């Protein structure tokens, strides 16, 4: 894989993670347990949409074929999306959505910190801005996780199940492939083996404060980064892309 191609593929992975997670969060508007959480959820989703837009625009420039941010978001098919399986998982209840964002942000924050030190100026600029947003998201999620874990017996058990169920999607974050290695080599990109223990340390610290147990590393799902998704993504895209697909060429 050429270096340029790897950077493009990596940019789309980053962009797809943020867009697909944002789309899931947008589904939760007007369904949050408190008004204050409506504000927080919308705010975080806005951050991710903003990040996705910056990344898709960069991908368009890297590719040089004139594709816009909306072409990437609305005109690609399921197998062309390279997001982690974790972020496409359905919302479930408040604890499920919280765990999904917590596990992802705990990884993403380190990924961004590494990108802020890489040799690609655009990634550095992007990561320096995004990492501030994601650190705040992670703090918010961690505080809620502690409240749910150390709240009532019911909330403790419920969020433990959420954690156990989502855990199988965390292995994929660290499963390095050709694109990850090429980005690491050519632009001094994130080293997943370095991030793994940092993620583990941060996640375990919050899980412990939340009086929850760290699930065991049994079977791990994978495939999202390579475009092999769960059944859920097709429905998400069908809904998200419907207007662009129904009115080809229209501008909005």
């Amino acid at each position, binding site marked *: 894989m050429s270096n340029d191609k790897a950077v493009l593929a990596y940019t789309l992975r980053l962009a797809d993670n943020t867009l697909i997670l944002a789309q899931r969060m947008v589904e939760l508007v007007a369904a949050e347990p408190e008004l204050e959480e409506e504000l927080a959820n*919308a705010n975080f989703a806005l951050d991710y949409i903003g990040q996705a837009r910056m990344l898709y625009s960069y991908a368009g420039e890297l590719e040089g074929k004139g594709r816009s941010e909306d072409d990437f978001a609305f005109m690609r098919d399921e197998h062309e999306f390279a997001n982690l399986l974790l972020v496409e998982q359905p919302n479930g209840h408040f604890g499920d959505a919280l765990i999904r964002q917590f596990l992802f942000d705990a990884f993403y924050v380190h990924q961004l910190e590494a990108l802020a030190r890489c040799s690609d100026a655009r990634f550095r600029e992007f990561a320096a801005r995004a990492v501030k947003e994601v650190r705040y998201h992670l703090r918010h999620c961690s505080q809620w996780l502690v409240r749910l874990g*150390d709240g009532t017996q019911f909330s403790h058990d419920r969020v433990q199940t959420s954690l156990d169920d989502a855990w199988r999607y965390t292995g994929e974050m660290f499963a390095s492939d050709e694109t990850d290695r090429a980005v690491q080599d050519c632009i001094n990109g994130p080293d997943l083996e370095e991030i793994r223990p940092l993620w583990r340390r941060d996640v375990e610290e919050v899980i412990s404060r939340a009086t929850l147990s760290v699930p065991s590393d049994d079977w791990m799902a994978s495939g999202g980064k390579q475009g092999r998704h769960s059944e859920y993504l097709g429905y998400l895209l069908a809904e998200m892309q419907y207007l662009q697909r129904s009115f080809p060429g229209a501008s909005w």
Partner: protein
Amino acid sequence: MYTQGLDQAGKDRRIAAETEELLSAFQRRVDAEEKIEAKDWMPEAYRKTLIRQISQHAHSEIIGMQPEGNWLTRAPSLKRKAILLAKVQDEAGHGLYLYSAAETLGVSRDQMVADLLSGKAKYSSIFNYPTLTWADIGAIGWLVDGAAIMNQIPLCRCSYGPYARAMVRVCKEESFHQRQGFDIMNALCRGTAAQKAMAQDALNRWWWPSLMMFGPNDSESKHSAQSMAWKIKRFSNDELRQKFVDVTVQQADFLGLSVPDPDLRFDEDTGHYKFGEINWQELFDVIAGNGPCNKQRLEKRQKAHSDGAWVREAAQAYASKQSARVAA
């Protein structure tokens, strides 16, 4: 209206304490355009009117998130998705300020939310109409937020300080909302024939309900006279409706859309547009619960509240444990 519905002993005592002297001193302050603040003396009926109005306004913001939220997952571009999400977030924020403004009058947010969920409290009937196409998001911003601004700008000068101050910020954001709605309509009207048809259809469905947002005709409006005297309200329903029609018809012309009113015409003598008779029965039906989405909107709110109960309980339990730990 002072004695209307005030049948509890406590309230009777408070009303009995409302001497002529107190009432006329209060009215003098209002007439002098002084702001009434939370801890100031005020007639019980003034307090009650404001609680009703501010809480209804807050509820409208919260319920209003639903028809627009209906298109968040399907917004046609990332830019439109971000703008719409920011707008819906503003509405949650408006709900929050307004509940806080109402709380200064001695009612709790929990009580107001309970009244909304039980169906006792009202919210703006406009949100009981469905958003069927993307153009409805444009029409809501353009017409519904446009009508809301006409209603709300005078509230920035309302005699009750906390409400007036909350409205200053709300109005600034509403004016962005109105522009984003017009911008959506403009893009559709400059687009393909199918897009323009979508815009026209949305105007056809939202025009009359938007005119109803100003409330009944002045002759039928039961709270108006007292609210005007208290300077809670500054202009009558019919004055505001006329102002809205005058502005909006010209915008529709600019867009190349036709207003769905065969009686609409410009009156050279008055300089205003004359418009056809509003179907008031429709408004009364929707207020009585018989609109296309009343049941759906309320059920969604109730479900969010009950689905979230375990989360609120957990937060409460954690907070109690934390205070116990600090005390120990």
